[in-house]
């Protein structure tokens, strides 16, 4: 049971990582990266590192996502210019 959950989490982690670097739309990439952070936080709890899981969930999925979105909001699409 435990290893299937871990395997699913890792597969999803890998998928979100690949999607995040291949997406052309920056906002979508930021959202997928946030999902990556959430998966990573769950994996940290599986690895018995709850401190890191708390940090990853608050900083990785929360604060940096907002910072990235603010920065994306301030940029202009190359096609629109």
């Amino acid at each position, binding site marked *: 049971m435990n290893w299937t959950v871990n395997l699913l989490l890792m597969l999803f982690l890998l998928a979100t990582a690949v999607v995040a670097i291949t997406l052309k739309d920056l906002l979508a990439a930021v959202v997928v990266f946030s999902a990556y952070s959430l998966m990573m936080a769950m994996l940290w709890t599986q690895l018995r590192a709850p401190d890191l899981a*708390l*940090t990853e969930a608050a900083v990785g999925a*929360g*604060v940096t996502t907002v*910072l990235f979105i603010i920065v994306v909001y301030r940029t202009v699409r190359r096609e629109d210019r």
Partner: protein
Amino acid sequence: MKRLLVLVALAVIGVTLLYGIGKMPPMDSRASPDKTHVVPRYLGHGEEEAGAKNIITGVILNYRGYDTMGEVSVIFSALCAVIAILDREKKGRSRSGVDASRVRTSLIVTTVVRFSLPVVMLFAVYTMLHGEPSPGGGFQGGAIVGASIILFTIVFGLAVSTKRIPPGARVPMESVNMLGFLSMGFIGLAFGVQFLTYILPGLGVAAAETVRKLMLDVIELGIGIGGGIIFISIVFSMIREDRYELQQDVP
């Protein structure tokens, strides 16, 4: 020619690193130095040496205290860089996209934020104060405080939240993490023991226990409040748009 040089340099570095790896004890082996020295020391003497029930807190605040001090100063200098480039928000003139938008925020979103914010804040304070005996700690709690205020800001707009938490209230609290950490560290020196020692000699057993708890709580609260306010200030100065900039957009 250039590429060949790069290739040779990379090959030399790679071979050196691989040679070093070959000399290392195999992964998970019982003979590796961290298993023979570090882990027994931390697990066996962590509580009486570092002064925290949670070994991770002991490592973070005592064994690797200088590392934590460096991290605290790193986020402080990140704030300094952001303020130097982007400047703080201006009272009554700075707003964010939500304030300028003519579409009102959905009632569902505002209600959910209103109901969840106090709970999130309570959890953050719990995380900070229980960093010593259980997982969590100042930095995590501070990040949760920061995230909750940032959530409030992106839903209700910068004008509202800068009125609630004005720069005048934030500026003194931004350095609280470094000041708290350093002052608690120097208490150890004043008692004739090492920097960042929490179990002070020369006190009674009960008094030393109280002082240890107080010092750890001051450090955790300082790191938490300082870190949270630093996150908030960084986001405020990144999200702000001054009113005269916005008027150009409106025809």
